[in-house]
């Protein structure tokens, strides 16, 4: 053991101490290097990993824009509702709970059991879009495996009154028809998302970043006047019912701004509960359907002749004997009138007179006028399914076709196009551009006729609603009205149906300084009367009177009582 004791005094080799020191230094160097590496190079990755433990991405909902009328009243609003869904495998509910769930959802109990019993599927909707209060009560039942999600549902307070203009949205709140579809891109909201830090109780304690800003849809203010729309729809519906007609449509335009103040169709539907809807109800006839306008086109024939200087309002046209045979076709007047002035041709709505005027015109001129009036091309409103109508190329017109086109056969237009064409007479020769959106100011038009011609035709149109004209029933007490009736045979199977008509009336008021153009179309009135002056003109008068009063348009006629037309006084029209 001496050696052990002696070794205390042995001097250790110096390298051993240095070796230990070097090892320690190397160890520290590795640690330092590693920490530098973590702190600098890997830091983004590690921080991301760390944040993922407590940060969450939240969805920020966005609402669809509202649709308002020109006075700011709501026509369509989205409001949150709940959709109830379930994971069938996880559902554990007592029969008692299932019963109350079925009654809360307004579902048949068998149907509910069938949906929950479908364990093949991981996800079933039990009921979509229930009111939030009902959703809260469903949540209060506390059935495991039954969940809810928030969705938006569109409500239309106006119901069927505004159905065709507004259209509707689908279950996912995206536009499917009408204005909802036409202005989808601006109405639609874009949901956003943001990253937040949540504490252990699930409360949001800090905002880290906004990944995408939620953008609510923009509100859309239409040109529509809620009161006028309601008045127009009511009057139209009543007339369609009283005349047992198949359908009807009405358009009211502001002559100065070209705004669509009212647009309604019958039959309509309730956009808030769209079950069992068919094509006829959904069709927005005023915009998407075309028809042969009949005599409402005569003023344009006369305007073309006046413009070319072929006739003056006082030129006498011989319409005797009320028939005009061309090739194998005979044009007839319902009430043969003998010799009459051009103004009387419009007043009495003589087919023979209009045909004779047209035959004196170059067909290219007529065609060019129709095109300038916007016939044969969609009105560019941006509305889905706008019809352009049909105007055939001038070089294909035979004389008989040119003659029938003079009184509105062999050409097809939509009611909206027809109403717009009449703004030419309301604005002293300018065609107003149409808009569904409120502009609230006069719009610059496109000149189609000279002011002189337009005013001359307007004076003739005023005669048509006087006693002795075709539409004394279109008159409105206190204001001068001008307008034209139309009664066209309906086309069927390539020919004209004998006893099916489309009655129409297009007019403007007040005649001294026109503010409004209203067009009415009644499809197949079948309660005995079918002349435009008897079926469509009263609707026009009713709506026009209400509209003039609503817009506070000053009177331009004495307020004398209007004698109701007797049977003999009302001139029957031919087409």
């Amino acid at each position, binding site marked *: 053991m001496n050696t052990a004791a002696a070794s205390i005094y042995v001097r250790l080799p110096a390298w051993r101490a240095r070796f230990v020191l070097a090892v320690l230094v190397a160890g520290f160097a590795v640690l330092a290097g590693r920490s530098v590496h973590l702190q600098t190079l890997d830091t983004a990755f590690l921080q991301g990993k760390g944040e993922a433990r407590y940060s969450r991405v939240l969805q920020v909902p966005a609402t669809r824009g*509202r649709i308002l009328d020109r006075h700011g009243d709501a026509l369509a609003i989205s409001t949150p509702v709940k959709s109830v869904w379930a994971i069938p495998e996880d559902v554990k509910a007592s029969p008692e709970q299932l019963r109350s769930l079925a009654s809360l959802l307004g579902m048949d109990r068998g149907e509910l059991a069938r949906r929950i019993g479908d364990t093949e599927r991981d996800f079933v909707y039990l009921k979509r879009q229930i009111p939030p209060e009902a959703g809260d009560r469903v949540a209060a039942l506390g059935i495991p495996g039954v969940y809810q999600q928030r969705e938006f549902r569109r*409500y239309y307070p106006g119901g069927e009154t505004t159905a065709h203009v507004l259209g509707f949205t689908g279950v996912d709140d995206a536009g499917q028809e009408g204005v909802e579809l036409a202005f989808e891109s601006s109405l639609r909201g874009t949901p956003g998302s943001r990253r937040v830090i949540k504490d252990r109780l699930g409360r949001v304690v800090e905002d880290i970043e906004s990944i995408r800003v939620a953008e609510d849809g923009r509100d859309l203010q239409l040109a529509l006047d809620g009161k006028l729309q309601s008045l127009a729809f009511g009057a139209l519906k009543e007339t369609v019912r009283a005349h047992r007609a198949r359908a009807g449509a009405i358009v009211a335009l502001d002559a100065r701004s070209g705004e669509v103040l009212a647009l309604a169709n019958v039959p309509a539907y309730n956009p808030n509960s769209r079950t069992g809807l068919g094509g006829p109800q959904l069709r927005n006839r005023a915009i998407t359907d075309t028809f042969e306008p009949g005599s409402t086109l005569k003023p344009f024939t006369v305007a073309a002749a006046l413009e070319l200087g072929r006739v003056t309002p006082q030129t006498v046209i011989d319409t005797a004997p009320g028939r005009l045979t061309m090739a194998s076709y005979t044009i007839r007047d319902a009430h043969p009138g003998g010799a009459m002035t051009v103004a009387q041709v419009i007043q009495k709505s003589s087919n023979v007179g209009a045909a004779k005027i047209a035959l004196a015109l170059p067909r290219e001129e007529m065609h060019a006028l129709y095109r300038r009036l916007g016939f044969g091309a969609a009105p560019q409103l941006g509305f889905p399914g706008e019809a352009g109508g049909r105007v055939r190329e001038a070089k294909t017109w035979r004389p008989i076709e040119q003659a029938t086109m003079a009184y509105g056969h062999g050409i097809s237009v939509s009611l909206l196009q027809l109403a717009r064409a009449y703004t030419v007479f309301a604005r002293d020769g300018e065609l107003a551009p149409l808009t569904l959106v409120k502009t609230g100011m006069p719009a610059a038009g496109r000149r189609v006729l000279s002011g002189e011609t337009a005013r001359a035709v307007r004076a003739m149109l005023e005669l048509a609603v006087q006693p002795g004209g075709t539409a004394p029933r279109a008159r409105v007490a206190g204001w001068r009205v001008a307008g034209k009736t139309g009664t066209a045979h309906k086309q069927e199977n390539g020919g004209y149906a004998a006893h099916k008509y489309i009655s129409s009336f297009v007019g403007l008021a007040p005649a001294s300084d026109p503010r409004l153009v209203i067009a009415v179309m009644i499809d197949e009135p079948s309660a005995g009367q079918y002349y435009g002056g008897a079926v469509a003109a009263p609707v026009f008068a009713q709506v026009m009177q209400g509209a003039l009063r609503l817009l506070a348009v000053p009177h331009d006629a004495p307020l004398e009582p209007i004698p109701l037309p007797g049977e003999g006084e009302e001139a029957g029209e031919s087409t």
Partner: protein
Amino acid sequence: MAKLNLLLLLVLLACALGLVTSQHHQRKLFAELERENARARELDIEYGQLQLEASTWGLHARVARIAAGSLGLAAPDPRRVRVVELPAQETAR
């Protein structure tokens, strides 16, 4: 030297506590902001629902029905209406 160190330590402690307090304060304010945001959303939704309700009660067809029915109102005969021009309009012309 030791005095300075002690002073610095105290300053450090004060800063640390201040940081904790302001962090806490920030979180409280943030929670409040979140609450108010949620309330704003709820009020917005309620506003929409009330607007909907107002439109439904104020439907023109309904107003017309009540006016003509239970209130017995009617539009005046056009002959009994006088249209008065506003003086402002006259001067403008």
